[in-house]
C-alpha cells in the first residue's frame, strides 16, 4: 500500500523533470527574439508612415510654390511615395514576421496551458469517481483518496507537457532553420527600402527648406516682423529634422540587419546547446530596437 501511494508522486517527479529541463534554452531564446522582432517590426512600420507623410508634405509644398507660376502643378499628379497596395504588402509581411516570432515563442514556452490543466484536473476527479463507483458496486475494496486523485491529475499534466515539449523540440527548430533564408531575404529587402526612403527623405527636406525660404523672400514685407522671424526660425528646424530622420532610418537599417543575424544565430542555436553568442546578439538587437522605439515616441510627443 505504501508503494502504491508513493508511485504517483515519483511518476510526477520523473515526468516533470522530463518536460521541464530540455526546452528552457529554446523557450528563452525564442521569447527574447520575439520581443526584439516585435520592436523592429513596429519601428519599421513607423518609418514607412513617417517617410510617406514627409513626401506628402514635400509635394504639397511644391504645389503651393507653383500655384501662381506659369506652370502650376496639377494636384492630381501627386502620388503617394508608397501606394496602398505597397503599404499593405509591407504591413502584411511585417505582421507575418511578428506572428512567426510570437508563435515560435509561444510554442517553445507554452508547455503549460489552461486547457491541459483543466483536462488533467477533470481526469483526476473522474478517476476518484470511478474508484467510488467500483467500491460501491463491486466487492473490490478500492478507495481512491483525494491525494491520489490529485497525484493522477498532476501526472497526467506532466505527461501532457512532456508530449508537448517533445513535439515542439522535434518540430520548431526545423521550422526556424527553414525560415532563416526567408528572414535573410526580408532583411535585405527592408534594407533596400530604407536606402530608398533615406534618399527620398533627404531631398524631401531639401525641397521643404527651399520652398520655405522662397516663401519668406517672396512674402517680403507682407509678413509682420514677428511672423517673418517665426518663419525664418523654421529653416534650421527643418535641417535638424532632416538629420534626425536620416539618423533614425540609418539606425533602423542597422536593427534590421541585426534581426537577420540574430535569427541566423537562433536557427543555429536551436540545434546546439551553446547559446552564449546568440544571447549577446539578442541583447544587442533588443537594445538597438528599444532605442529606436524611444526615439519614435519622442517624435510623436514632439509633433503633438
Amino acid at each position, binding site marked *: 500500500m505504501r508503494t502504491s501511494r508513493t508511485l504517483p508522486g515519483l511518476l510526477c517527479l520523473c515526468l516533470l523533470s522530463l518536460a521541464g529541463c530540455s526546452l528552457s534554452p529554446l523557450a528563452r531564446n525564442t521569447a527574447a527574439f520575439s520581443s526584439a522582432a516585435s520592436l523592429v517590426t513596429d519601428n519599421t512600420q513607423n518609418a514607412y508612415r513617417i517617410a510617406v507623410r514627409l513626401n506628402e508634405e514635400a509635394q504639397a509644398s511644391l504645389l503651393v510654390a507653383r500655384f501662381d507660376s506659369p506652370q502650376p502643378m496639377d494636384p492630381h499628379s501627386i502620388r503617394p511615395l508608397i501606394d496602398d497596395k*505597397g503599404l499593405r504588402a509591407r504591413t502584411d509581411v511585417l505582421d507575418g514576421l511578428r506572428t512567426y516570432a510570437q508563435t515560435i515563442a509561444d510554442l517553445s514556452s507554452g508547455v503549460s496551458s489552461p486547457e491541459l490543466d483543466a483536462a488533467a484536473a477533470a481526469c483526476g476527479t473522474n478517476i476518484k469517481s470511478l474508484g467510488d463507483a467500483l467500491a460501491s458496486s463491486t466487492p473490490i475494496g478500492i478507495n481512491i483518496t483525494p491525494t491520489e486523485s490529485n497525484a493522477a491529475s498532476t501526472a497526467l499534466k506532466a505527461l501532457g507537457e512532456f508530449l508537448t515539449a517533445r513535439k515542439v523540440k522535434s*518540430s520548431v527548430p526545423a521550422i526556424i532553420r527553414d525560415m532563416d533564408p526567408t528572414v535573410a531575404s526580408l532583411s535585405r529587402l527592408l534594407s533596400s527600402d530604407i536606402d530608398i526612403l533615406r534618399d527620398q527623405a533627404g531631398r524631401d527636406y531639401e525641397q521643404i527648406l527651399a520652398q520655405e525660404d522662397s516663401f519668406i523672400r517672396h512674402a517680403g514685407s507682407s509678413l509682420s516682423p514677428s511672423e517673418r522671424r517665426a518663419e525664418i526660425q523654421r529653416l534650421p528646424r527643418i535641417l535638424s529634422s532632416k538629420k534626425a530622420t536620416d539618423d533614425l532610418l540609418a539606425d533602423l537599417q542597422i536593427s534590421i540587419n541585426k534581426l537577420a543575424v540574430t535569427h541566423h544565430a537562433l536557427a543555429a542555436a536551436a540545434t546546439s546547446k551553446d547559446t552564449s553568442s546568440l544571447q549577446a546578439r539578442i541583447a544587442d538587437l533588443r537594445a538597438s530596437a528599444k532605442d529606436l522605439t524611444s526615439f519614435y515616441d519622442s517624435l510623436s510627443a514632439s509633433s503633438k
Partner: protein
Amino acid sequence: MPPTKSSAQKSTATPRTVAAPEAPPTSLPPVLSNPDTIETYKALYDILGRAYWEASDLNAKDTIQGARDAIYQILTDLNVAKLEANTALFLSLKSKIKDSNKALDKIKDDINNITKNIATASSVVAAIAKVLSLAPALA
C-alpha cells in the same frame, strides 16, 4: 521637432547601399535604370541646391529652384518605381512567411490534440464511473 541624435559615423548625404534580395523588376525607361544616370541627376540636384543658397537675386533663385523641382520630381518618380518593384518582392516573401506560420499552426493543432486525448480519456473514465454507479440499482 525631433531631437537630434548623435551619429558621428553616419552620412546624411549619401545613403549606404545594401544589396536587395534579387534584381527588382522595374518599369523604368532603360536610361533611368542606369545607376550612372541616376547618380548624375542626384549630383545635379545637389549642385543646383548649392547654387540656390549662393544666389542673392530672387529671380535667379526662382529659376534655379524651378530646375531643381523638375529633377526632384524625376528622382521621386524613380524612387516610387523602385519601391513598387520592391512591393513585388514583398508579395513573394509573404507567401513564404505564410507557409511557415501554417506549419506552426499545424504544430499548435498537434499540441491541442494531446490535450484533447487527455480530455477524451477523462470522459471515458467518467462514463465508466457512471455505468458502475448505476450497476447496484440494476443488480
